């Protein structure tokens, strides 16, 4: 196995998971997004989304801020600089392998 292909095994599996990749991509396009928006855009169930957000937060890829708008609870998610870099690196790595002749 070549070194190039071996590097593929070192891919960041945390962000490689499709649901988390979707969440990170959405958050990269905005400053922040709330739970409801992420739920609708990803099509994940609330429990599933919650689990993925927790994993991303534990890895330091996103910040989760719990606040209120009026009396309604609001869960705001933001991609951190670490998360942004992880997403960028991951996309670059995938593109490199997918576009390889």
């Amino acid at each position, binding site marked *: 196995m070549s070194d190039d292909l071996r590097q593929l095994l070192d891919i960041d599996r945390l962000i490689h998971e499709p649901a988390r990749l979707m969440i990170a991509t*959405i958050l990269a396009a905005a400053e922040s997004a709330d739970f409801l928006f992420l739920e609708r*855009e990803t099509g994940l169930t609330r429990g599933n*989304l919650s689990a993925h957000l*927790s994993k991303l937060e534990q890895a330091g890829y996103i910040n989760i801020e719990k606040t209120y708008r009026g009396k*309604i609870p609001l869960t705001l998610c933001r991609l951190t600089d670490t998360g942004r870099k992880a997403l960028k690196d991951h996309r670059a790595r995938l593109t490199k392998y997918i576009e390889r002749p």
Partner: protein
Amino acid sequence: MNEQFQQLTRRTRQYWYIDGLVELSFGGLCLTLALYFLAQALLPATSLLANLLTTGFVIILVGSGLITRKVVNTLKAHLTYPRTGYVGYSHPNKYRRILNLLVAALMGALVAALMAAAPLSAEWIPGVSGLFFAAVWLYFASRLGLVRFYVLAAFSALAGVSISLAGLPENTGLAVFYALLGAAMLVSGGITLWKYLKHTDMPGTDASIEDAL
């Protein structure tokens, strides 16, 4: 996969315009400007009110802009965010703000040069305004991929140039132009809002899963 990434990114960027509230509010702003230019056209140039309107133009413009922004944010907080969620967008960085100012200054200088070079070109102010708004709509349409913005761009250019070709006096021409542009934006925003409300429901407030985060 790249296409899917781009689609997700684009959908997130489009979200600010999903409900048509931006067009409705700016349509209202355009109608305010139409009333302003209509008053200028109807009032004698030497009247106190006409002078007050002329000197207060910047205040009216900035004030209307601030009110529009406030109205959009308030309406979104009541209509959009409870239905389909909230997305916050980053403010333009310093470089971008300078670039915006430079483009605005360039446009102002071009109009001033046109006026100085040919005084009759005052009739062409609606045409130039129409082309300017068309360029703005085209920029947003190509960036966001929203078809209705292409329609607004075409309408804006067509309305502005037609009014100029009709040879209406400056203030009357501008009043008609802003009235048409405002009406077009209200129609576009109204249809978008109607479709949005038809396809979205106000969800319940069960936040137990969110609370568990």
